[in-house]
């Protein structure tokens, strides 16, 4: 892989103390020496988890930027033109909303529900704050969403809709559940007991970007991996439900999947979807229960391992285009997987690669996640367009990622070809290079 000369230098590579966020949403407990009580504690019990975070906010507003990507704006909601730099829409505002509710200074309104849900939960705010103060606005957002759901004033209608779809069809797209594996051309025995690997396809992959699933299965076959799929027993991982405050529903679908996978006795679960990966990676901490008996891997981790061990040997150039890599939030910033996708790309012969300016820990969110694509398509489109503009700015002609949801949103905003960019998954490039 040759690195194309950057137009804008990455300053973060000069610093060796870049932290990544370690929060795991709501499993933090307040420190024992913070004993603040508020007048409305009993009225909003679900805000208790956010208290410790919110009281530490310094109101500096750095949550909307990236300190190590040349101080670029890095919060999609605070950059969105109609809400440009409004405090309510950046991390600081979520903390202030929590404090305002707990002190009785403000009451929940439809606009505050909007404030809570007009957010990708990308975690840039948490990262920026962790570099100075260390409060976690994501915890405040999740607490607000949960509170509003319990009050019956949330989630937005679009989220209720996909929640019903997940209940009925086991996917948020209202697609027939029997079509989940319709894309699967190779003969794979579903629910094979004792297989080494369970490939969890997710929802967006099979129903919206089946080419990503194709590439995954093709690579598993090329590596002679012993794998199976859940077939008709695969339900939505529950991540969209969890992110939108519908925790009971999320738990139900998550536990169904865990039970079915455990029955098979597989040792590893892999998925190509960053959202599914994070859900399985952290689910037992969110929903209780014990850690799954199987190892949870993102496909980039498995295939990076296969490349290192020689099980996969790329042979040919995958593309002449200049490739950049978009870090999915659920894989990168939230969990810390940055290297493996890049290792995959670096194994592809003669690949020309360039990093985004806002990359790795400081990646700009594609805009799709946490229910935004359904309820606020204008924000999802804005964020994706900004990312595509950034790709052009750094000189890329192919945008790769490691999440079908990112790929989907970026593709939708490149549909008219206005940026001249090709968008795909890193596994598709790897698969091409195997031929």
């Amino acid at each position, binding site marked *: 892989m040759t690195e194309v000369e950057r137009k*804008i230098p990455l*300053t973060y590579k*000069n*610093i060796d*103390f870049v932290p990544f966020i370690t929060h795991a949403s709501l499993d933090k407990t307040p*420190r024992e*020496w*913070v*004993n*603040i*009580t*508020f*007048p409305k504690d009993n009225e909003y019990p679900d805000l208790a988890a956010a208290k410790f975070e*919110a*009281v*530490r*906010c*310094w*109101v*500096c*507003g*750095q949550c*909307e*930027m990236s*300190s190590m990507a*040349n*101080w*670029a704006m890095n919060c999609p909601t605070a950059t969105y033109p*109609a809400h*440009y*730099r*409004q*405090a*309510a829409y950046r991390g*600081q*505002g979520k*903390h*202030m*909303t929590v*404090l*305002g509710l*707990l*002190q009785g*200074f*403000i*009451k*929940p*309104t439809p*606009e*505050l529900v909007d*404030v809570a849900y007009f957010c990708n939960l990308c975690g840039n705010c948490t990262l920026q704050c962790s*570099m*100075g*103060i*260390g409060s976690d606005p994501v915890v405040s957002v999740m607490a607000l969403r949960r509170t509003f759901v319990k009050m019956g004033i949330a989630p937005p209608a679009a989220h209720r809709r996909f929640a019903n779809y997940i209940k009925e069809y086991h996917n948020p797209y209202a697609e027939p559940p029997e079509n989940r594996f319709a894309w699967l051309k190779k003969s794979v025995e579903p629910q094979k007991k004792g297989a080494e690997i369970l490939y969890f396809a997710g929802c967006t992959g099979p129903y919206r970007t089946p080419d990503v699933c194709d590439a995954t299965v093709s690579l598993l076959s090329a590596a002679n991996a012993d794998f199976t799929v859940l077939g008709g027993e695969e339900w939505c991982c529950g991540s969209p439900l969890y992110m939108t405050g519908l925790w009971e529903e999320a738990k139900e679908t998550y536990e169904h999947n865990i039970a079915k996978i455990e029955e098979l006795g597989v040792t590893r679960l892999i998925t190509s979807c960053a959202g599914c990966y994070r859900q399985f990676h952290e689910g037992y901490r969110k929903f209780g229960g014990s850690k799954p008996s199987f190892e949870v891997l993102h496909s980039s981790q498995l295939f990076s391992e296969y490349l290192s061990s020689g099980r996969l040997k790329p042979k040919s150039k995958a593309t002449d285009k200049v490739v950049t890599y978009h870090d999915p939030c659920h894989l990168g910033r939230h969990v810390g997987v940055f290297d493996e996708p890049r290792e995959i790309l670096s194994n592809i012969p003669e690949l020309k690669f360039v990093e985004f300016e806002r990359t790795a820990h400081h990646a700009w969110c594609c805009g799709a996640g946490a229910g935004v694509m359904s309820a606020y398509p204008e924000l999802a489109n804005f964020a994706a367009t900004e990312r595509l503009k950034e790709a052009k700015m750094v000189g890329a002609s192919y945008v790769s990622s490691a999440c079908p949801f990112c790929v989907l949103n970026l593709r939708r905003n490149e549909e008219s070809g206005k940026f001249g960019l090709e968008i795909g998954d890193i596994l598709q490039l790897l698969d091409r290079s195997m031929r």
Partner: protein
Amino acid sequence: MPNELVLKELEAIVGPANVISDPGRIFSEVYDAWLQIFPGKPPKMPDYIVRPANELEVQDIMLMANRYKVPVHVASAYSYKLPCYSGILLQTVRMNRVHEVNVEEGYAVIDAGVTFNQFYRYLRSKNIDLVIPVTTAPPNTSIVANFLFKGIGMNMTSISDGNQEAIMALEAVLPTGELVHTGSWSLPISSCKYTFDLGFGPQLTRIFVGALGTLGVVTKAAIKLWPKPKALTVKLLGIKKCDELAKNLSKVMYTKLAPNTSGGHWLLLVLHGTNIAPYWGFDQKKKLYDLTDDDIAKMREYYGFPGEGTQYFYILACTPHYQSEDEAKLWEKYWSAYLSSHPEVTELTPDNCPGIKFGEIEASLKMYGGIGEGEPGNQRIRYCGWVPGHIWSFYGSVGNSALPKLHEITWSVGRKHGLVPALHTIPINEGRVSHVRYMVPIERGDGEGVKKYAAFFGEVIPRVIRESGFVPARCFGLGAKVVSQHMDPGFFELYQRIKRAVDPNNIMAPWLGFNIPFEYG
């Protein structure tokens, strides 16, 4: 009081998306949780927040406000929350265009809402190697607002770090809606309209400096730019006594050991030794204000600071700018000569202070400190030593020679009340004055700590004003009361006359300034 007619007019001027009327969203903008005691009183809130895009919309807003006699408070991102009791909060964040950067003549013309980070990204994208004076502001704050904000905190002003010198001319909308240009910009055909602050008659640009929006809305400014330094070194100097600190502050400036690239505006941070945990590496479990003399002694031992026992220790962080690496090397011998002739100063190094994370501090100073790289803000250094909790602080200016007296009073009063007032200072006005901030950490929600601070504050403020000539910044309440007892009455009178002349309806932030009676109709 909210007024539907006012709301409709605002929406007609700027568009509905740029008017915020929901109390929950307004709350997030105005709530100053930094200073809040929990649980506390509700903040004063404007009825509406309006975000104009240009000076024409600002003019329309001011004309409307005069018609309805609605108070208007102007702010940029409003990160520095002066009280806004009602009416309209006018935010300049959408006025964020860089109109011109002239490399040969070293100036830029920018909108009032252009932020430090935005401006630096603009300069980088054009490969322009110029910088603006550093401030202690966060990078996402307005350049113009910071340069103008030297100001009347209720009654008194004292944040004067020389940055106002960077403004050479400005455009403003008066409270009555007229658009004015100051300096030579008042003659639009002038060839020095952006580069010469004197125009015709009095220097009217300065009327807006420190006025905190009480005399009009600044919409654009022509600011100075300086060459970016080519080399940077960081020197950490340990000094035992405050009077020695003050003397060395002056000497280092006058002997030009630490030259700068922006006319005297460079950052020296004096970090009182107890400021340093935990960021600088000392891992102590106690709440900072529970530290005893033994703890301070242990901290000294841990870091290897010069001095003995609980004797206070100071670190002077110097970040000289040089025009080349060769120049930086040349100055090293001058530094060596200075240090050998000043035994009261010890250069702190990894050898003699193994507990300090030098690499991290240096990287922070270079990257975040608005120094060297020319990056804005210095959040890490500013928050250096803060433990999770809350900091109450007071700040202002003092003549350099009075710094030891100020510190002696503050420290002794602080310790008497069981607090640890940590000093942080920046030299301003070419080293003649110290802009001082005392940080006093208290845990959030700790009622006892708050009482201690209230007692400390009540005692220390009158004393430092009277005994060391401290000029408090952002001065409300007690500080304003003390200062007003000594203020030149002619100064009040002059301000009030100017205010009445430019703002006959008293609509621009009537609760700031010198308490001219306000009637809201």
